[in-house]
């Protein structure tokens, strides 16, 4: 196994590097395809804290769908911390999605429903804390969020791909940026 500079060794290295480049491009392609072929929903959040933007390149989104009543739980056994869950959302064409139920296994939604995957962060007495891994929004350089100084109200456009990946498409200010300032 010593390093040899034979043609076959060089070819293997080149193939491996090419595979890595293709793989990273594939991840980028999955990003595009999730928007192109995915289902689009709007999620409501609490007003965004912009202070962290001074030190970091992202803001934390606190979704209203991140805390659901325990009555929405549809599993056979009580939910556990860190458990992976499937959240059924009722969606409208241009309205915010609302949680219809939290399931412990995959399900087939109606056309006016969507399924977003998440994890249980905490089980409280009456509610269930959820995490969607969509909490960090890396704010692009040209985003109106970068101009705001207070905590603006926003809504979040999320695409869910048929194969299960999800991404934040964009974050929209609910009021005009001038009003927010």
């Amino acid at each position, binding site marked *: *196994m*010593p*390093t040899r*500079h034979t043609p076959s*060794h*060089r070819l*293997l*290295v080149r193939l*491996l*590097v090419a*595979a*890595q*480049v293709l*793989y*990273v*491009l594939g*991840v*980028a392609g*999955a*990003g*595009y395809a*999730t928007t192109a072929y995915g289902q689009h929903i709007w999620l409501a959040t609490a007003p965004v804290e912009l202070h962290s933007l001074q030190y970091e*390149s992202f803001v934390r989104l606190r979704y209203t769908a991140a805390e659901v009543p325990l009555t929405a739980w549809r599993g056979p056994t009580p939910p556990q911390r*860190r*458990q*992976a869950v499937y959240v059924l959302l009722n969606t409208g064409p241009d309205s915010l999605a609302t949680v219809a139920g939290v399931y412990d296994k995959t399900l087939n939604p109606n056309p006016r429903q969507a399924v977003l*995957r998440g*994890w249980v962060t905490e089980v409280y007495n009456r509610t269930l804390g959820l995490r*969607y*891994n*969509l909490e960090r*929004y*890396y*704010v*692009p*350089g*040209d985003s109106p969020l970068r101009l705001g100084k207070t905590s603006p109200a926003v809504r979040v456009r999320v695409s869910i791909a048929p194969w*299960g*990946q*999800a*991404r*934040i*498409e964009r974050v929209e200010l609910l009021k005009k940026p001038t009003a927010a300032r």
Partner: protein
Amino acid sequence: MSRKFLETESPAWVTEGLITEAQRERLLARYPSDAVQAVGLLPLLGSILVGLSALSVVAANWQSLPTQLRLGLLLGSLVAAYAGGEYFLRRGNRRVGHGLIGLGLVLFGAGIILTSQLYQLVGYDVSGLLAWVVVGVLLSYLYESQTLILLPIVIGAAVQTYCTQALGLFSYATMGLVALGSGYRWWRRPDTLMASVLAAGLLWQAALWVALSHSKITWFFIPAMLVYAAGDWHRDRAAGRALQGPPLVAAYLFALGLALFGETDQYAGLLRPPVLAYLGALAVVFAFSVAGKRQQSRLASLPDWLLLLPGFYLPGGLPLAIATLVVLYVHAGSVLARAHRSGEAEQLTLGTVLFIIATMVAYFKLTWAFLDKSLFFLIGGVLLLSLSWYLRRRNASRLAAGVALAAGGSALIPPPTSPPEPLP
């Protein structure tokens, strides 16, 4: 041998007639002065600074750069690192070459993570990062470099940590890739450092599995001792022992914890898996290990398994603590006995330390309640001092005998074992 040592010592060698002046000069020429090497580091430091400045410019403006440019930067630096690595390897500069290829591998992982972040994309299983581990394992086969062998083990542990902590699932594929991929690499070309890192990486993943599945923590020792047993089957004794180090340390710490805290039934209750399933699995691993020891004729290391005696099934309380202490003593004694037979200085030290630890635990455990505090410390101190004096004396005489034997019989082949001495 350092240049400074040569410079100070070699005149005496010439006067004593060990070497001639000409030979001294040739020896000095063979080891160039350190100053030359230090100057050789300057270009490296300079290029690191330049690289850091470029990195900070990119990092500060990362979010403002267009998507395509960001993707291009990631892929460009990836390809450049690999191309640079190959270039330096062809020129014979192995260290820089392997370093750059390692950098390429790290950049691949960074590329996957930053591209997902670029599209604010969320994956729900580990498949995205699994490719990183696969590439790492493949690279470790393509190059003969310690860095590139260690990287996939570390990457595997990191990916598994992310997977269990953020996604709440255990990636058996990652575990399998590291265990089989890096494991086979080690099996073919053993290396002691790699063996210890490999064992520690696998143990880390096993611990994550136990934590995630809410199993009794004693289940951890089934995969851990499987790693240990793999070391028994290896033909290279040193490499096998290095692989067995981390599992043995884990087992020893566990036994020590049992001796210290085993009295409370509550703690012991946390450790009791279903008897038949656990003992059955442990017996299978034990048989595998014994078969390996027999094959490589290393049955002398069998007392290692004493640490795995499932004493926690005993009722909690004093009987459990005392039984564990007896096991610790017998284990320390077995290490000492083995060291006395083989005459290895490191094993002797280890055995001595283990013996002293067992004595300390026993003393703390059993006499705290019955003695006045000052008397407790006085007796404990005297006990430890006399014990260490006795063991040191034995070690010194044992090693001196070994040296005399080796010096006396240097022309002959030394006998494989010296007659064993009675145990302390």
